[in-house]
């Protein structure tokens, strides 16, 4: 045990002496935590709409006022020239064009139906779909109004009344939805990168030889590397959680003990992964790129920005061995939904196994002879 304490003292000294890295590992996450939730706003608002009205009838006027009154759209242009509207799409000033053809009102009354054309700039798929949906919903509403006006006797009540509720985030606040995930990503990046660079730095500067000639056991050496970064990452996580409360007013709904017990095991897995990379590499450059490569894939496939349900089956299999996926899931469950330990037990068990496998592998792969 005393070997370990000596090693730990050495590691802590090295960490505290390197002011740049220390500053980066605290300041960077804090800054990101302040900036990312502001930047990562997928809320679809300010959809810019250009209306081309060839009809200029009372019905078209009604439709236009209905649309502008909805609050979803910003009317950037109202003209009779499709060419002009199309140019606005080309320059990214408009996202949607609504074209009301000539005789729309007349067709509506004579033939019971009339067409309007919607052209969507679909490069940004989400915005296109949601914008189109809003417009469709407004047109459906206008239809209903026209119907009651023209056929007052029809009973419109014969339809299903839909009561919607959003649980755990009733106002659909985007920040609430994204912050637990961002915290998960930050802790993963800090832990993964720092631990990946650590052993390899000793290799590059040659100091690892000095350790290799001592009777220090392999497991002590790995633990000596693991524990300081574990503490560091725990502190970063705690700071993040505090900031989430102070700035974004997010209080974990579940038990903090449940949360921390999961995080502590999760960090062991992430740090183990970093150390494993470190034992395989010979230069910091290699380690950095390898760590970056995997962490990037882990984060992209972690289910924070896109849903795992929509992935193809083979990709779903991969997400099963992705630790970030479990972390993001548990953060959402415990922080936002207030799940208890029994709910997250499957995730906990899997991450625990990962921690053992990765660290065991790192110990085995660390060779004292080169």
């Amino acid at each position: 045990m005393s070997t370990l304490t000596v090693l730990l003292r050495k590691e802590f000294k090295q960490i505290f002496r390197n002011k740049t890295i220390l500053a980066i590992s605290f300041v960077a996450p804090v800054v990101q935590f302040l900036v990312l939730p502001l930047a990562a706003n997928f809320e679809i608002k300010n959809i810019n709409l250009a209306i081309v009205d060839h009809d200029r009838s009372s019905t078209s006027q009604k439709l236009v006022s209905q649309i502008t009154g909805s609050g979803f759209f910003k009317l950037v242009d109202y003209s009779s020239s499709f060419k002009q509207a199309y140019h606005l799409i080309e320059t990214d000033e408009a996202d949607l064009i609504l074209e009301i053809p000539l005789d729309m009102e007349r067709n509506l009354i004579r033939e019971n139906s009339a067409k309007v054309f919607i052209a969507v700039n679909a490069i940004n798929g989400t915005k296109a779909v949601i914008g189109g949906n809003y417009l469709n919903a407004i047109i459906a509403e206008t239809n209903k109004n026209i119907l009651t006006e023209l056929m007052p006797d029809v009973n419109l009540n014969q339809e299903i009344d839909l009561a919607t509720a959003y649980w755990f985030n009733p106002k659909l606040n985007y920040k609430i939805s994204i912050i637990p995930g961002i915290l998960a990503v930050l802790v993963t990046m800090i832990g993964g990168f720092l631990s990946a660079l650590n052993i390899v730095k000793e290799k590059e500067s040659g100091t690892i030889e000095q350790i290799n000639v001592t009777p220090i056991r392999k497991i002590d050496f790995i633990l000596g590397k693991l524990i300081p970064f574990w503490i560091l990452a725990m502190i970063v996580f705690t700071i993040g959680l505090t900031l989430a409360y102070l700035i974004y007013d997010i209080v974990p709904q579940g038990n903090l003990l449940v949360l921390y017990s999961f995080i502590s095991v999760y960090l062991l897995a992430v740090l183990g992964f970093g150390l494993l990379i470190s034992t395989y590499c010979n230069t910091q450059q290699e380690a950095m790129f390898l760590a970056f490569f995997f962490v990037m894939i882990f984060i992209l496939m972690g289910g924070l920005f896109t849903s795992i349900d929509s992935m193809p089956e083979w990709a779903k299999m991969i997400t099963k061995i992705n630790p970030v996926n479990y972390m993001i899931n548990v953060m959402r469950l415990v922080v936002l939904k207030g799940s208890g330990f029994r709910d997250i037990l499957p995730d906990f068990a899997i991450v625990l196994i990962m921690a053992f496998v990765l660290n065991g592998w790192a110990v085995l792969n660390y060779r004292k002879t080169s």
Partner: protein
Amino acid sequence: MNTTSSLSIVRNQLFSFVRKEFYHVLRDKKVLLILFGMPIVQVLLFGFVLSNEVKDTRIIVIDVARDEASRQLITKLGASCYFKIDHISTNENEIEPTFKKGKIKAAIVFPLNFQHDLQHGNSAQVQIITDGTDVNAANTINGYIMSIIQDFSLESNPLQKVSYRIVPEVRMLYNPQLLGAPNFVPGVMAMVLMLVCVMMTAVAIVKEKEMGTMEVLLVSPMRPLLVIISKAVPYLLLSFVNLSVIILLSVYVLNVPVKGSIVLLLSLSALFIITCLSLGILISIQTDSQQAAMFASLIGMLLPTIMLSGFMFPIENMPWPLQLISNIAPSRWYYIIVKDVMIKGAGFSSVWRETLILVGMTIALLAISMKKFKIRLA
């Protein structure tokens, strides 16, 4: 010594230095593998794995009604590709625990007398509960459930079919199948070029400082600035290879063709690569250790590329200070250029402003680097 022979000496020196750098790059097999593997994996990930669609979302149905109408509607929900019914239950208390296990994203409740209410003109109620922790998914899921139920109510109520209605006809421009690819291919290009040019260049130069070999290079007869430039050349070529791989993958695997002029795309990409290289050189001059250079390029460059270029997150949603900051991220302008030229097929006339900004940035970065560059290290 006449000028032509001294020029040829400089050329020979430069050539041998560039060759030395190529050896450095090509000998490190792991880094090389990742440099080429990264863009391929990213394109495939974004092309086939990551999407904003809603598909196979797990839902729970609480069918208290248990009548013909509710059963029909449940079949309709289960048959759509959007939803997978986790299970059907009659107990409303099951909703919360199932949400807390993270197994479902939505719950639909049919109350007692659903069919009776529906047929007798009292509006029948259906309750939709969606998991709000993932906002955009919640919106989309809710929309799909609502449209399925409305379809059903329209079918079961023939009277509503005859009516005056305006029928919208929707046309999707540029990207009719609503693929994610046209949106992210430009982003992946910006990200990979940034990674290769900024991070690799910065680290490679700082590494010589850290190992002490920089001193050796600086006392050689080669001009110090040329030493630095020759370090950047291999990465220039590497990034061109990467660029071609991404474009080929996007054309032949993802079916996203280059709509505009390929020459314009490549020459503006070359400009962006030079901007990135000068940024990498500046970082390498300012930092002393590999770790510092890595973190500076990672946190200072790569994250802003991902966050502020408009590729992942829409710029118009950001608060104005961030929008202001996003202006100094070179990738923001490159992203616009690629989107306009490659996806929309625009010509130089519509991207000259972005080009000019990149040129200005490059000149500024190089000027600062020259000024900060010191021949002596200590």
